[in-house]
């Protein structure tokens, strides 16, 4: 198990913090619209992979860039970062909003991806099983919606939300609002998914209260070859609740 090293890079003027651990084929993890889940779960991958966990601009330890108003701004940011890090081809894993971003990145730059794993990805328009409107859910209700077993998240939250915690969440909601307030879904996103030609895995918790597990059917329609695995008794943060989900990703990528 490797210990994560923290590195700060400046990517087109934006302070970008990247955590790296392990050795082997590179594996990049894109976090979701909140960063309370941390990245210690990713240590399980470090014995086989060089695991690279960047914070997106506007989230966690990275700096802000209010000009990022579109998911594509993040695609451009990562093209630049990966060039700086001399990452030519790599495995890409994305969670939730990070899954949406990973799929978008892969649909545009499939040749740079070895394999793709999406954990409860956002981005799908499904009138029957819509994603919860995360920007409209009161902050205090969000933690309860993220997991099925609250204990796995509880230890990562302050006992009583302090001003810094509230401020950090508000900042991440602000960054998300710049991207998604007016257009939570880009109807053109799924059109280009067929350009993802690399092996793809999709993981979901069957008790996901944020993005319903039924959306796997829509993903199957656009990515018919994807290996879809549903984990029983898990919520949105399936990677925190089910170590076997993390192991399944490692096995799939390995």
């Amino acid at each position, binding site marked *: 198990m490797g210990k994560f090293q923290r590195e700060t890079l400046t990517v087109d003027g934006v302070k970008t913090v990247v955590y790296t651990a392990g050795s082997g084929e590179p594996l990049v993890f894109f976090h979701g619209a909140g960063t309370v889940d941390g990245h210690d779960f990713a240590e399980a991958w470090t014995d086989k992979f060089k695991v690279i966990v960047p914070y997106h601009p506007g989230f966690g330890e990275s700096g802000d860039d209010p000009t990022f108003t579109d998911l594509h701004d993040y695609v451009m940011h990562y093209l630049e970062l990966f060039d700086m890090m001399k990452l030519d081809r790599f495995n890409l894993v994305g969670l939730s909003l990070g899954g949406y971003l990973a799929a978008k990145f892969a649909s545009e730059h499939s040749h740079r991806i070895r394999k793709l794993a999406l954990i409860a990805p956002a981005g799908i328009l499904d009138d029957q099983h819509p994603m919860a409107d995360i920007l409209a859910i009161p902050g205090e209700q969000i933690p309860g919606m993220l997991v099925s077993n609250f204990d796995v998240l509880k230890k990562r939250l302050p006992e009583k939300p302090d001003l810094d915690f509230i401020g950090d969440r508000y900042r991440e909601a602000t*960054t998300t609002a710049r991207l998604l*307030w007016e257009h939570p879904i880009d109807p053109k996103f799924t059109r280009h998914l067929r350009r993802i030609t690399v092996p793809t895995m999709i993981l979901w918790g069957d008790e996901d209260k944020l993005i319903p597990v039924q959306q796997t059917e829509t993903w199957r329609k656009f990515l018919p070859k994807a290996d879809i695995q549903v984990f029983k008794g898990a919520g949105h943060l399936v990677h925190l609740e089910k170590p076997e989900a993390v192991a399944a990703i490692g096995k799939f990528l390995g």
Partner: protein
Amino acid sequence: MMSALRFNSMHFMPYAHLPANQKDHKSLWVDFSNKHYDPDKGHDLYQRYLKELVLADQLGFDAVVVNEHHNTVYSMMPAPNLIAAAIIPQTKNVRICVWGTPPNLMMPNRLAEEYAMLDVMSGGRLEVAFPLGTGMEYWANPANPATARDRFKESLKIILQAWHEDGPTKHFGQHYTYRFLNPWPRPMQKPNPPCYIVGTGSPETIEIAAQLGFGYASVFVTKARAKELNESLRERAAHYGFTIRPEQLPILNFVYVAETQERAEQEYIPHLQRFFEDYLRTSPQYLAPPGYLSVDQLKVRAAAADKMHGGFNFEMLNQAFFISVGTPEKVANDMGSWCDEMQTTHLNCVTHVADMPHWKAVKNLTLLAEEVFPRLRSRTGAGQRIAAE
């Protein structure tokens, strides 16, 4: 020497028929269902409120003030320009203040056009204030709170360009594109009707007012904070080469006058209590949608909200805010001291609150106009105490 005092009558036009279980609702804004709105009752209220605005003109108030809010019992004016248009032909002298429509909720050319219409229709009596809009408006309208301040600045630029420059002109911006900005009509008042920024005093909006030489109408801030904001606007405006005049700094105040102190309190305080407890009640989330505030401002406000415990406390509110309830002498004295303290000549009086009945509104307007203002109008300069003191 200060110029003559000026008195406005401001009306929120609330929907005054709250359901019996309204206390069960955490917010009476944004998500409070419009199934509770009865158009017949609404009709009666509009008739009544329009009369109260027109009465202010007849009694000699200098201005009437209307503003815009959405999805709430607090206000039945999602479109204040309609109210302004309705009262223009019924009034002769009052300034018509639309304070105002958030530019982010309307196409800027359209707002420039509507304000120009009102100015021409009223023979140059219009005054406008530009709010960013409360956080609640951003939940009710298709505008992004996280980019609101940039959009707001761009809107103001377009509106002023439409008023100041002979059209057609062009604008290619981040949020709006105009190939032929050429609105007819143009305002009667040159270069534009008197303009203010209205808000709760975030440093960003003060700066915008300073850059443009606009007045600043602070609302729902304490007396101490209002004083700081006025000083800050004077200083920042000077930096851009503008001198802020006293009448550009209106004081939002809540006043009620009756024959005796006891009677005034008895007649008014229950309505003021309902105003603060119910009509203003909303959630922290609705007050601050994502990106509406900077993270620093959000923390400042979250810390302040944490300190506010207990319910309605009249004495505390009376101390902190511009509130005066009592005899004509008392109210005149309070208003006089506010003007001295704030170095302004402009009193923006909320003359009706919450479910106050028509007779109280009429009584209040009449006593203000006939018993209070004359005591103050005789003032010839700042710092002079009135005879009754």
